[in-house]
């Protein structure tokens, strides 16, 4: 650096000051080191050590974001309230992370004590200074060419335990990465990508185990949820989402259909430490659109399962869509909340806005259905019976079924705010598909859809799919999106914010009664969580398909949201 400054005497001041800063930083580092060593001796856990205890009490440290959904109850609610309705006009961009990839950005980052861990599409991991966006290290995993995810090479994020990050890859691996060094510690094979399996979810750590589920419901897989020892990567248990011969539930399949029956598990589950149960949503049966090839209820497809996290044993299940002909994956995030019952006790509930268009309130101790109603227009069922089973009303061939194949909602993380008592979901309204089932023979690794969704509109009109260009070519003709606030006591809508285009954004709520979400049009907007009024918005220029999250460093609250191929971080000025 000194040599450089003599070679370029025209820039002495810049280089001089850089040099000075550099020296200062070395001193700082030495001091920090001593402080850290002392801290290590005096108190545990040290910064960056995310024990299971800390995961259990994630709500005690709102400055951090320790699991995909922000805590085991998955409500995506932050108790941080520095950003509030009164100062939104000052909200400004703090920094941007631009991905070196054009794949969809669906990940939610983790933040641990000032460090952000983010997956860059597809399967790279970056550690960043959460305050400034500078990169500490980057781990690159190049997925095998065998990987064949149905719907985009996406990854939704990481899990952490102690100082180890866990990454699930689209080519079927689970990789443990040293959170400080950025180097892999172990790598295990969870699934065979050549047979259509993929991992797109953020893993879930419970105790000393890492839990993942497989994607591949469009390829005739037989789904499962696996647990691995966090230290060694050894498999601890496997729960098949389709029961094998002799197991209860197997009778809901005929012939050999169970072997290729799908039932993936491609979004992260939740955990109730008191009941010691982990809850996972299960995907569609296969072939997706041709139920005639798989008569029966097809358990546990389109269900939520409650598992013992130590053994993987099934405690209970609830099926949303028996014998599903519409690809209504029920992988949505199980949102857990408690309310007092009228006998002085607590009702432990699970809230679920399903891809099939219905909202459900379940008792998460038993899986019993408590109440529910449709939150978008539906015509595949006329309602739910007393047990929460849909009264199916299949539409005649050629007629439009609502919701269409992408569902009334999908992977977009919902939020529950204890402050407002409301549940919030991103929905596709009045959006339909014409389902055309077709017999299909299973072939390993080939798509096994059993038909196709056709466009209900003639005349060249487009309907929303997985991707979106800059022009909204379907407009109001093919349905729009909405943020919907549902009162879980009645399952009825409290308010709705309609949008021109459908939305794939997750939702975050805060203790300051704000609701953060985005849409496919590239708007990041902040609403009043009580009323749905728009308080603030910014055009970020790319589709928002991840869940916004919040954290705090040095007493400053940040909001992170990905749009297009970048992640944007907002905060208040000093």
């Amino acid at each position, binding site marked *: 650096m000194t040599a450089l400054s003599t070679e370029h005497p025209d820039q002495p001041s810049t280089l001089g000051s850089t040099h000075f800063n550099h020296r200062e930083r070395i001193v700082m580092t030495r001091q920090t080191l001593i402080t850290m060593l002392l801290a290590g001796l005096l108190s545990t856990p040290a910064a960056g050590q995310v024990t299971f205890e800390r995961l259990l009490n994630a709500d005690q440290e709102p400055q951090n974001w320790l699991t995909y959904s922000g805590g085991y109850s998955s409500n995506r609610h932050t108790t941080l309230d520095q950003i509030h309705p009164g100062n939104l006009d000052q909200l400004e961009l703090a920094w941007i992370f631009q991905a070196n990839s054009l794949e969809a950005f669906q990940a939610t980052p983790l933040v641990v004590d000032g460090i952000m861990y983010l997956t860059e599409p597809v399967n790279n991991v970056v550690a960043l200074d959460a305050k400034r966006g500078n990169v500490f290290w980057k781990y690159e995993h190049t997925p095998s060419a065998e990987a064949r995810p149905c719907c985009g090479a996406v990854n939704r994020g990481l899990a952490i335990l102690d100082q180890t990050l866990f990454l699930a890859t689209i080519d079927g691996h689970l990789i443990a990465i040293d959170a400080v060094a950025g180097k892999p510690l172990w790598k295990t094979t969870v699934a065979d990508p050549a047979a259509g399996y993929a991992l797109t979810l953020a893993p879930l750590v419970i105790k000393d185990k890492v839990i993942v589920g497989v994607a591949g419901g469009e390829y005739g897989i037989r789904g499962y949820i696996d647990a691995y020892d966090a230290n060694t990567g050894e498999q601890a248990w496997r729960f098949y989402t389709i029961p094998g011969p002799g197991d209860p539930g197997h009778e809901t399949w005929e012939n050999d259909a169970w072997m290729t029956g799908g039932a993936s598990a491609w979004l992260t589950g939740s955990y109730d430490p008191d009941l010691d149960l982990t809850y996972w949503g299960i995907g569609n049966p296969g072939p997706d659109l041709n139920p005639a090839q798989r008569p029966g209820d097809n358990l546990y497809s389109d269900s939520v399962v409650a598992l013992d996290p130590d053994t993987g044993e099934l405690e209970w299940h609830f099926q949303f869509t028996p014998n599903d002909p519409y690809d209504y994956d029920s992988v949505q995030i199980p949102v857990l909340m408690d309310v007092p019952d009228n006998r002085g006790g607590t009702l432990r509930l699970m809230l679920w806005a399903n891809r099939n268009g219905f909202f459900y309130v379940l008792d998460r101790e038993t899986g019993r259905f408590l109440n*529910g109603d449709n939150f978008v227009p539906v015509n595949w069922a006329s309602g739910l019976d007393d047990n929460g089973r849909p009264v199916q009303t299949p539409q005649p061939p050629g007629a439009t079924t609502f919701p269409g194949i992408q569902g009334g909602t999908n992977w977009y993380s919902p939020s529950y705010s204890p402050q407002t008592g409301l549940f919030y979901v991103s929905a596709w309204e009045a959006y339909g598909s014409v389902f055309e089932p077709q017999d299909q023979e299973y072939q390993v690794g080939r798509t096994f859809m059993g038909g196709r969704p056709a466009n209900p509109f003639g005349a060249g*009109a487009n309907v929303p799919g997985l991707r979106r260009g800059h022009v909204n070519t379907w407009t109001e003709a093919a349905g729009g999106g909405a943020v919907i606030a549902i009162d879980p006591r*009645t*399952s009825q809508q409290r308010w709705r914010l309609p949008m021109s285009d459908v939305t794939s954004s997750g939702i975050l709520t805060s203790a300051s009664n704000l609701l953060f979400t985005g849409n496919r049009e590239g708007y990041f907007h902040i609403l009043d969580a009580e009323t749905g009024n728009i308080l603030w918005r910014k055009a970020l220029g790319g589709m928002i398909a991840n869940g916004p999250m919040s954290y705090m460093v040095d007493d400053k609250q940040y909001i992170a949201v990905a749009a297009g191929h970048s992640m944007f971080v907002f905060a208040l000025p000093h």
Partner: protein
Amino acid sequence: MPKHTQFARITHTGPVISVLLTGGIALLILIGNPSRAVGQDHVGQYEQADIEFGVRLYGANCLRCHAETGDAVAGVDLRSGAYNRASSDRELMELLRTGIPGTAMPPNNFSDSELTGLVSYLRTMRDIDLSAVALGDNTRGSVLFTGKGACATCHRVNGLGPRTAPDLSDIGSIRTAATLQRSLLDPTGSMLPINRPVSATLSDGTVINGRRLNEDTYTIQVIDQDERLRSLDKSELRELSALTESPMPPATELLDTEEIADLLAYLLTLKGLE
């Protein structure tokens, strides 16, 4: 917690959807019942723009072997959407890049967006109307376009004519003959929703009429009656409506069957700048 069951609400979009924006401005959008028209053009998974790009690439690179019908190579039916050698979109892209060694199917150095376009088109090919269409004489068609058919009073071709209706300079490479025929016979039934005529009333009462180019929750982009590109903030509008009826008259009003066949032949020669 009360336990109750309610039955499903509305199952169909009504003819009028009235949306109240938070700004307190009523947004009135008139739309027709989503009735199912003859033939379907596109499956939902793929972007309209990608499909159009794909049609173009297909015409330039694939047509000579696979033909418009997609079934000209023995044992290969591109319209079926199910291929022997590729299942996922990724595999299909790989196949188009590498070709099939040892056969006439050539390798090609396509970019990612070209591959996306081709796959979007292949996957939706069977929705695209390929029914036989009578084609006449394109020279006569060209004369009808500017003359008796009065098409040029609204449409622009190769830099000549008004811009308020869609520019047709490359229409022959992004639409099939059957789709074009339907556009001529039934303009309203085949109007793309994004092309709907819109009318916006500003707060001062000024009315802007135009064709919609894009729209989102907060804004709308139009080309107005004076051929200006305008982006309007919905919260500043007194009223906004989109009509489902096309301003274009059916070609049968001015032309007979033979003349329409001539016109179609002409439209198919419009390939844009190569």
